[in-house]
């Protein structure tokens, strides 16, 4: 037996995220160009870049930007719910149901709780941050949020607030029909 015994290979296939937890791995998605500001001041801005629709939900691609030194020295807190630098995002459906990116924050931790993925589907919608980029960007940050599910009717309202750069609660209406139509065109890869 070797001193450094190689452990058996893990079987990552044992666990799979529930379908509401992330964009479907076996779909291409259909991108809708938006490229419009959600909120803008002289020293900061939030832009909705695009929406990628899948059969069961959609991704919001946002750009947060700020003036040099506008957020202080620790810009990574843009993605930490308990930080004032945190960029707060919510979606609201026409039926009044809503979700925010603070819903799953732990009370005493700066990270989101991953354990919810084992639970039953939420009443919908669900919003989760995808692909957080943890390398420093000193003046901007690209942020992608997965939203489950596709709203049955009406428009979707995107709500943002960014206390650290004095952007107040701001709302943007997104055409629900465009999302619903695009979601029917997302093709399967396998």
């Amino acid at each position, binding site marked *: 037996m070797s001193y450094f015994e190689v452990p058996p290979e893990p079987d990552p*296939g044992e666990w799979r995220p529930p379908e509401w937890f992330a964009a479907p791995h076996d779909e291409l998605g259909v991108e809708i*160009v938006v490229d419009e500001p959600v909120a803008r001041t002289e020293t900061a801005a939030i832009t909705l870049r695009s929406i990628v629709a899948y059969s069961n939900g959609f991704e919001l691609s946002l750009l947060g930007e700020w003036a040099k030194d506008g957020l202080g020295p620790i810009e990574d807190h843009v993605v930490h719910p308990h930080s004032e630098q945190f960029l707060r995002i919510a979606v609201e459906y026409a039926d009044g149901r809503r979700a925010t990116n603070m819903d799953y924050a732990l009370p005493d931790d700066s990270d989101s709780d991953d354990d919810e993925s084992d639970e039953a589907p939420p009443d919908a919608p669900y919003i989760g941050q995808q692909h957080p980029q943890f390398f420093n960007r000193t*003046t901007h940050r690209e942020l992608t949020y997965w939203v489950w599910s596709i709203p049955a009717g009406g428009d979707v309202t995107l709500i943002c607030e960014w206390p650290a750069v004095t952007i107040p609660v701001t709302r943007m209406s997104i055409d629900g029909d465009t999302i619903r139509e695009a979601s029917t065109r997302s093709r399967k890869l396998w």
Partner: protein
Amino acid sequence: MSFFEPNPPREPVAQPAPVPEWLEEPRGWVGGVVGTRIALATTPDVAVLVHSLYAFPAGMSLTVELRGRDERATRNPHRDFHKILHAEYTEGELSPVFFRFGIELADGGKATNLVGAEERRSIRDRDEPPNAPVLSQRGGSGSGSDVDIRYWLWPLPTGERISFVCEWPAFEVPISRADIHTTQITEAAPRARRLIASME
């Protein structure tokens, strides 16, 4: 003296020399969203996707995603991350693990990620813009069964169409090609803009 002695303050870092526009996207800018997602190739094990296209006045950035169907599959692309991104040769033969990618324009001009060190230096050090398109690999990342590779294409494609081409022998992806109309790209380029911080 403390056990954990702090490092002396860093010397100020000199501003890096400007990089020619044919080598990377302009710093302090954000590109216009093109809004195209392509499945360039699909096999039973992997898919090659092109997405995150952003148009700038002088070129376009894009991401190629190598998506493994299943982490359980033995052909998990992420395991070969370095070899996928870097061309290695054994007795003159290019490694089958290296992911081959390129573009072709309507006028026949093409650029690939197979650029030798000498050619790379020549492109980097020249004073005048090259007379052929340039495709620069701008880094990569990977997790689980996926690998993302970012590219910068110079100049902004003109003509009727642009073709994306790939081949990946180790993962049994044959030469595969997909075209898009360049109108989508040229319409997005005017939406490129400076970031707030670069307007100060």
